[in-house]
């Protein structure tokens, strides 16, 4: 008897996970970045002995404390959801997902919490240098937490270094370093943390600009702005470089995601990069509509960025769905057949083993291993199921990239006006700085939407789709927890904004 799912269960489970992840990510990037800005300010204080820098450090530390306290443990709900809503996935990934998360829990979390306590409560109780060390270790600890989680996420985007054990129905880690040092993991970690540093820099500049607009604490605001702008320009430039690295990896490992990012339906050599585009509403991959209403491209750039070769062929959605023998691209339907063979082989392997038929079990095992690469395709009912939501991915990608380049320009403007002109007189720039705070959050969320929506339908690329990963729960129970999370997270967000704005209005203690 087949285990038939109500598809709305998959959708509600996905919506619940997306909601949790997006709210969680509202708190995390500021924590990742502002800890380093605080550590830099405290280093200047310890070096110079200037009380002004100590006040600045303590003010930003208070805002970090608010963000940390309200955001902490929101990530635990994601772990609850793995066990409750995504139990097949949690079992299937075995120690590959468990190991990085365990390291995160043991090493990074304890490092982070131990030194956070010293950082918050240790002023005037421990020596200056000891306190400074605690601040730096807090910054490093928070970033190490992110490292392990992003390694686990990268493995889902590009599974490597593992072996599927059909006896336990689990993947087992063969090579830790292959998982840890996968180019996808390295680029993902670096791009994510540099984007978080960029967000934190914009936050500090925006809040400082508010003080300038209010004509309050001008010296403090200018000092903070300069540190954040220098930190921000370095971070945003690295963010651009690692973004290119991430997109290159996507082209190699997740070509369908790249095709969706570019709205590329028909593959082409000398592919142009869409700088500005409006997609044709309702376009399907197999209709004859033009994909774009408006499309401004840089010729050859997509091929160059994707394959480091301006002439390279970049496969489109149609090539990846229907296949392109000329380019050596198999059709999704062929992969579906291989996937179904792998699933059937897994089933017959167990039956043969239980019956004591070793020869048949070995034959099934060989078939499973030969076809495991496309195991997840066996759950697709139609080749079109392999196509992500193109417009969502396309526009999210453009929003992220556009804002990323805007941030570089913005940091340069701030540095110029702080260093060369009187920044306090540039009220237009200060208003722009305040307005840029939400833009940083939008860019950060858009980036995750590209990464996660772009890889649909996969929970683990090519091996497990969401439909196979989800637990067979009552849809109504998922709906109830979804709405409870909406209430909980929205309350936390309101509390964060309210307490944060109140503390900003109080300002640094004189």
């Amino acid at each position: 008897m087949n285990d038939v799912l109500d598809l709305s269960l998959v959708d509600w489970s996905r919506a619940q996970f997306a909601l949790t992840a997006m709210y969680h990510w509202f708190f995390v990037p500021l924590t990742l970045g502002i800890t380093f800005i605080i550590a830099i300010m405290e280093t200047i204080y310890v070096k110079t002995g200037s009380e002004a820098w100590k006040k600045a450090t303590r003010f930003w530390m208070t805002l970090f404390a608010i963000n940390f306290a309200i955001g902490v443990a929101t990530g635990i709900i994601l772990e609850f959801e793995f066990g409750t809503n995504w139990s097949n996935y949690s079992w299937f990934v075995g120690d590959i997902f468990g190991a990085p998360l365990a390291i995160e829990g043991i090493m990074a979390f304890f490092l982070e919490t131990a030194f956070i306590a010293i950082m918050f409560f240790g002023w005037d109780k421990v020596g200056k240098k000891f306190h400074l060390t605690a601040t730096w270790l807090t910054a490093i600890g928070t970033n190490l937490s992110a490292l392990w989680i992003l390694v686990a996420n990268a493995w889902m985007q590009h599974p490597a270094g593992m072996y599927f054990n059909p006896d336990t129905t689990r993947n087992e880690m063969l090579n830790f370093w292959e998982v840890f040092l996968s180019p996808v993991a390295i680029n993902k970690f670096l791009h994510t943390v540099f984007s978080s540093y960029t967000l934190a820099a914009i936050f500090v500049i925006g809040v400082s600009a508010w003080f300038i607009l209010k004509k309050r604490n001008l010296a403090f605001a200018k000092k903070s702005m300069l540190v954040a702008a220098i930190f921000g320009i370095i971070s945003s430039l690295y963010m651009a470089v690692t973004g290119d690295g991430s997109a290159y990896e996507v082209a190699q490992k997740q070509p369908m995601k790249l095709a969706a990012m570019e709205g590329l339906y028909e593959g082409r050599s000398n592919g142009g990069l869409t700088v500005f585009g409006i997609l044709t509403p309702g376009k399907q991959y197999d209709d004859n509509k033009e994909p774009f209403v408006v499309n401004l491209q840089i010729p050859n750039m997509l091929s160059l960025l994707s394959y480091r070769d301006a002439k390279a062929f970049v496969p489109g959605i149609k090539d990846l769905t229907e296949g392109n023998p000329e380019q050596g691209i198999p059709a999704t339907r062929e992969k579906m057949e291989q996937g179904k063979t792998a699933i059937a082989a897994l089933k017959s392997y167990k039956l043969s083993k239980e019956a004591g038929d070793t020869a048949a079990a070995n034959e099934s095992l060989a078939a499973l291993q030969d076809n495991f690469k496309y195991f997840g395709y066996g759950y697709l009912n139609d080749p079109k199921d392999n196509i992500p939501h193109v417009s969502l991915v396309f526009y999210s990608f453009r929003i992220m990239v556009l804002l990323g380049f805007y941030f570089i320009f913005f940091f340069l403007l701030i540095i110029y006006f702080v260093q060369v002109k009187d920044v306090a007189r540039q009220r237009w720039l200060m208003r722009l700085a305040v307005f840029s705070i939400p833009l940083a959050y939008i860019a950060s969320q858009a980036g995750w939407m590209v990464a996660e929506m772009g890889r649909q339908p996969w929970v683990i690329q090519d091996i497990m789709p969401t439909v196979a990963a989800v637990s067979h729960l009552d849809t109504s129970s998922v709906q109830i927890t979804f709405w409870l999370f909406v209430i909980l997270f929205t309350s936390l967000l309101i509390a964060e904004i309210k307490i944060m704005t109140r503390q900003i209005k109080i300002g640094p203690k004189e």
Partner: protein
Amino acid sequence: MTVGKSLWIIILIKVFILFFIFRLFLMPNYLNSRYSSDRDQGDHVHKVLTERNQSNTSTYE
């Protein structure tokens, strides 16, 4: 109320809601709450993965 006190209250309420309401009553671990041994859990996932929502036409069925 100081900012520190507000934050401690929020943390405690949040931890209570997460661990004593969500974890205990609304979000139990699906496999642990149904199967006591690793073997049974593995068998369940094997069954689901080989039977879920797919029409098998292979000779290995």
